[in-house]
């Protein structure tokens, strides 16, 4: 059963409701895990082209934990990441993030939840080309209705070393700088979970290392949960735990 967000919104203050959600999650016995995935199955495509990508996956990630998702191409790493971030709905099974069950959320509620609680770093950065670095970082804050969006975005950019590049457009920045902007954008709403999909895939080795250092430094500083998808075993080893996928199943967790 699902209550309508709009009707409930009129009656109970936001903070009180969030408290009740967290309390409800605890009562449901989910414990301190930030991410809880149970028996998730997902197929993509249609007809003869339909492929069973995630097969009965269950995974729990504790609060503040960093996990590295590795596996060969087509093993389902990115798809699992998308399921965790609420970007893809599983065919069956349950995903609970930070105490909120995704099954209960409609598309819009999921988008708002993501904006507040999940930060995403992409391999191809995906900055908005018509916006400056500062404006890019401010987007999730503005979408969440934060009145201090610009100040906070400035702080985030400064913290990733781009204080002098605030008003540059993506095309005026190097690959490494673009990825740092993307990282600042992901971190700006102070998310509980940061997911990164091959964050160094489009960068040279030394720039990639800088980004990874920055990523882990922020993880350590903020105590958030980190899910890192990578081909690079050495990089995965820097995480608290390595989860290996093969043909849509977890081989080692």
């Amino acid at each position: 059963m699902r209550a309508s967000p709009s009707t409930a919104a009129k009656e109970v203050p936001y903070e009180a409701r969030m408290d009740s959600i967290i309390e409800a999650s605890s009562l449901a016995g989910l414990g301190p895990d930030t991410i809880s995935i149970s028996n998730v199955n997902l197929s993509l495509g249609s007809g003869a082209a339909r492929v069973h990508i995630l097969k009965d996956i269950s995974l729990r990630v504790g609060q503040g934990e960093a996990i590295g998702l590795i596996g060969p191409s087509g093993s389902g790493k990115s798809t699992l990441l998308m399921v965790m971030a609420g970007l893809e709905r599983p065919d069956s099974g349950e995903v609970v993030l930070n105490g909120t069950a995704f099954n209960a959320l409609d598309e819009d509620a999921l988008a708002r939840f993501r904006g507040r609680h999940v930060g995403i770093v992409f391999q191809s950065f995906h900055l908005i080309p018509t916006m400056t670095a500062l404006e890019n970082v401010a987007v999730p804050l503005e979408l969440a209705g934060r009145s201090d969006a610009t100040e906070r975005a400035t702080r985030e950019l400064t913290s990733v070393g781009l204080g002098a590049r605030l008003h540059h457009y993506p095309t005026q920045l190097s690959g490494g700088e673009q990825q740092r902007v993307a990282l600042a954008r992901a971190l700006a709403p102070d998310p509980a979970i940061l997911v990164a999909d091959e964050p160094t895939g489009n960068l040279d080795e030394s720039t990639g290392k800088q980004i990874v250092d920055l990523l882990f430094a922020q993880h350590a500083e903020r105590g958030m949960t980190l899910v890192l998808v990578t081909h690079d075993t050495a990089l995965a080893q820097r995480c608290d735990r390595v989860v290996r996928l093969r043909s849509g199943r977890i081989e080692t967790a």
Partner: protein
Amino acid sequence: MTIALETVPSSRGPSLALRYALREMRGGLSGFYVFVACIALGVMAIAGVGSVAASLSEGLAREGRTLLGGDAAFALIQREAKPDELAWLNARGKVSVAATLRAMAKTSDGRLGLVELKAVDNTYPMLGQLTLAPDMPVSELLAERDGAYGAAADATLLARLDLKVGDRVSIGNATFAIRSVISAEPDKLSGGVGFGPRFLVSEAALRATGALQPGSLVRWTYRVRLPDAGANSPSANALADDARKALPQAGWEIRTRDNASPQLERTITRFTQFLTLVGLAALLVGGVGVANAVKSHIDRRRDVIASFKALGATGRDVFAIYLTQVLVLAGVGSLIGLALGAALPFIIVGLFGSLLPLPVVPAVHPGELALSLLYGLLTALAFGLWPLARVHEVPVAALFRDVASSEGHRPRPRYLAWMALVIALLVAVVVGLAYDKRVAAVFVVSSIVVFGLLRGIASALMALARRLPRPRITMLRLAIANIYRPGALTPSVVMSLGLGLTVLVTITQIDGNLRRQFMAALPEKAPSFFFIDIPSTEADRFSAFLKDKAPQSSVEDVPMLRGRIVSARGVKAEDLKPPPDAEWVLQSDRGLSYTSEVPKGSKVVEGQWWAPDYSGPPLVSFEKKLADGLGLKIGDTVVVNVLGRDISATIGNMRSVDWQSLGINFVLVFSPNTFRGAPHTHIATLTEAHGGDPARDAGLVKAVADAFPMITSVRVREALDAVGSVVTNLTLAIRGASAVTLLSAILVLGGALAAGHRHRVYDAVILKTLGATRARLLGAYALEYLMIGLATAVFGVLAGSVAAWLIVTRLMTLSFVWQAGSAAGVVLAALIVTVGLGLAGTLVALNQKPASVLRNL
């Protein structure tokens, strides 16, 4: 399970959508030029037509007094005002009288010309300026001197009869010396279209001609200038009301300075509506450009849209951002169009100024401009919402891997409802504000049908290409495959070109038919001559004379009176409120006739014709369509005012009339006993067995003038030429407006082809890498464009011809002949434009170096 409840913070409102929309446009308007231009062109057409029409109406209103020649004008047909009527008018203000009729002017060596004779008194003109060359006082101009009355004539009469100022002509029994040429006549517009040039004389001179026989077709107009008439004084209307009450039997047609030229006003309104619809067609064609532009913009921005969503934007948020962008762009296009449209009356006056025959007062008309803006925004929304709605469906997963596009998805019900609302609003504005709502409704329905058909044709063409057997010639195979492959140009090209072509064919077919009607050969068995003002006592002798002079011809002669419908089925004429196509019958005086037999060219369709010796209460036969328009049926009473008397008759039967025969046809034909004893004249036609011959015609005119100086001969050919020249001016305006549609269509087509450019480059590079030569690729592309263009052109010709046929036969009630030449021209032009524009873009694609493109694939 948990319950997730989150609020939408208040700051995420329209301002955020606007901010993001504007940021999104920082890259410039590239990709939106066609969008902006399409809206600008359509809005310009509508705003321009509206502004010019409003400027003209304002001019007519402002000049109303001058056009009318007074504060109020009282017109009588076939009779002068009685002394008591004249006294009543004289007691109210200064009165100036003018009489108009058609007459034959004859030079000393016997050459003849039809003139619109106007006799005025010495107070003429009471208002405005009569411009003469050479200039002289009116009293001096018209005075009788050296055995001749003075006159002024239009330059066309001097040219036609090879006369110069100082020469003499005779009309009836009077001789005139042409003392000046008329350059401008202040009250000319209120008179309507004349068949001949103006000939201005004095009232005494008119009487001297002998043309004032009982029943001759003279219109006497008494203009009254009120003593205290300020610009907004209501006394003109009060005077009209008083006159109707005090002298109900007068039967005069009263006009006041507020409606000096109702006929012209109505023509302008009707014509404005037609041009507005043509402008709207341009906007609809532009709408296809809007849809194409929005679609390709959304396609290009898929990653950005997905990024917004990954960062917490809902489907509705991103929709709001891109909707705002569309509205901003539509606003920009509309403003450009408004500026150009608003400037149009100023440009026209600036360029043509005093050459204009109408009083255009250029001004900015905010109401017209607001309406055009509304049209622009609603059209952009109506066409932009469908592709915009797909924004909601762009999956964030697109950022991680290639996913199938959401192209095939039907928008969510919420967006479909919005679309329906916008379209309903557009239809409501188009139909609600139309002068003739039926025409507007037909336009709306036809547009929707044409859009539906074009969509169907695109799908059918793709399905057909898919099912065709694979040809062995590579070029042909490639061309056919290009027609149906995913992302093919077929739907957008068919839509872009189809509507534009349909409008173009409609306009050219109507244009061709109007020209044929007025400028080409006369209809079979149409008369060559009308003879008017035949005294009833001379009618038989005149018929015999004609038969003697032109034995091969047939002569028809009927009695004719003029009268106005005062009331019908007990309702006053002004309260009858018929539909627009039947209004004309009440607007002025009509020709009336009486006969014991069914008139030629008429057929009784309801009721019985009266017996030849019928002598009961007056009966009238009414034209069926108009009777229906006025809500009349057999047995109803119709009251007409003839020669100042109200005559009541019962409708005995209804007739259908073939108006196009150009024969003598009357709406109202009475039983012979109705007008017994009333003075009247006859009207006759002469139809030549083998068409006219200019030399023989001139001889006949001369013979008639010699034997019957009071009878006026009107050559049908010349009368049609006079109407034809008006039609030519009108068709010029229509062509101007439709040129905008055509320009829009070409822009949209160019835009649609450019949108497919990226695919073309990719294809060309891959095929070249695999060994295709440029000539072979070019051939394949040309063939593809040719096939799509041909299918669309054939549809455009069919749909446009049907639309033109409907307009010509139903609205204009004229005959329709399909203009094969212009249709073929349109098809050819469509093919040249499609293939030309298509190949122009493709040539660039073909010249791309494969390596540089491949590196970026």
